[in-house]
């Protein structure tokens, strides 16, 4: 079972993780955190405290936009949607992380570890 990564790497990868998820479809905060945890097998885990400041930061930068939507149970949820600006951030971010892993692999052979 993979260990949870509680480090600056996890923090640094947050932008990529959130933007990638939102590129698929609009999601609300709890669902973003749940999907990230589930889809990374628990390696990446976002709590309320780590997730929302990031979302607000992204909203401020204009990468995502939020709107309230009522669900089937009549509850309001604040959905985040990727903006065109946010979408433009995604490709360079992916490339950045690809380069990072390539460099780390060259150095430490992490992909074969």
């Amino acid at each position: 079972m993979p260990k949870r990564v509680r480090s600056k790497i996890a923090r640094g990868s947050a932008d990529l993780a959130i933007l990638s998820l939102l590129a698929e479809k609009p999601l609300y905060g709890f669902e973003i955190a749940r999907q990230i945890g589930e889809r990374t097998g628990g390696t990446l885990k976002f709590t309320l405290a780590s997730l929302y400041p990031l979302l607000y930061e992204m909203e401020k930068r204009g990468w995502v936009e939020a709107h309230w939507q009522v669900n089937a149970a009549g509850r309001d949820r604040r959905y985040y949607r990727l903006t065109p600006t946010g979408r433009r951030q995604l490709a360079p971010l992916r490339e950045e992380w690809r380069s990072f892993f390539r460099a780390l692999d060259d150095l430490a052979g992490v992909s074969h570890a």
Partner: protein
Amino acid sequence: MPDWKKLVRKRLFKLGLASSTTEEVIAELAFHLEETYQHAVTNGLTQRPAIKIALQEVGDWHVLATEVERARTEESCMNYRTKSLWLPALITLFGASISLAATQFIGLQPRLVWFAGMGMTFYWPWLASLPVFGAVGAYMSRRAAGQTPMRLAAGLSPAIVMLIVMLLILPWGLFLDGFHFFRLVRFGLGLINWVGIPAASLLLGSLPFLRGNNRTAEMNR
């Protein structure tokens, strides 16, 4: 089940977040806690451990409040200050200036009062109108969730501007004409005349709006 919204509001408000932390944030964070709690209960936990798990999402309330505040306000800080200080101050200053100009335009003469052999001119109608402008400035600042010093500064802005102008004039006058005690006394009287008394008049109008917290109203909405 705890009232999550009430809890978040209480904890974040206690930490003195600025007004930019809106009801929207409180609702969103409370909703996240509630979902975490419900998820834990659905997975078979009893109320107490489920609450504990939900609260672990927050960790340190102070850190959360700081992070949320930073994330939400860093760039909108200018907007907040503009709305709660600069704009009300400018409107108060503009209103007070127009009032003085109008007083002179319609021919209302200033009342000359002699003090220690020196004449002081008082525009009583203008001074009487200043509480209105002080009130407008402080009210506008309060409506934009300005803190008490901001409301005060907005309400007293004409007197503050006059004070700055006079403090700039004094050294210049002393430099040009040399130091005279008489000049300093005149300057002091000028300060009372154009800063002290107008400030008191403006303060009179501002006072009702210095109390009461707009943020509280917002939080209780």
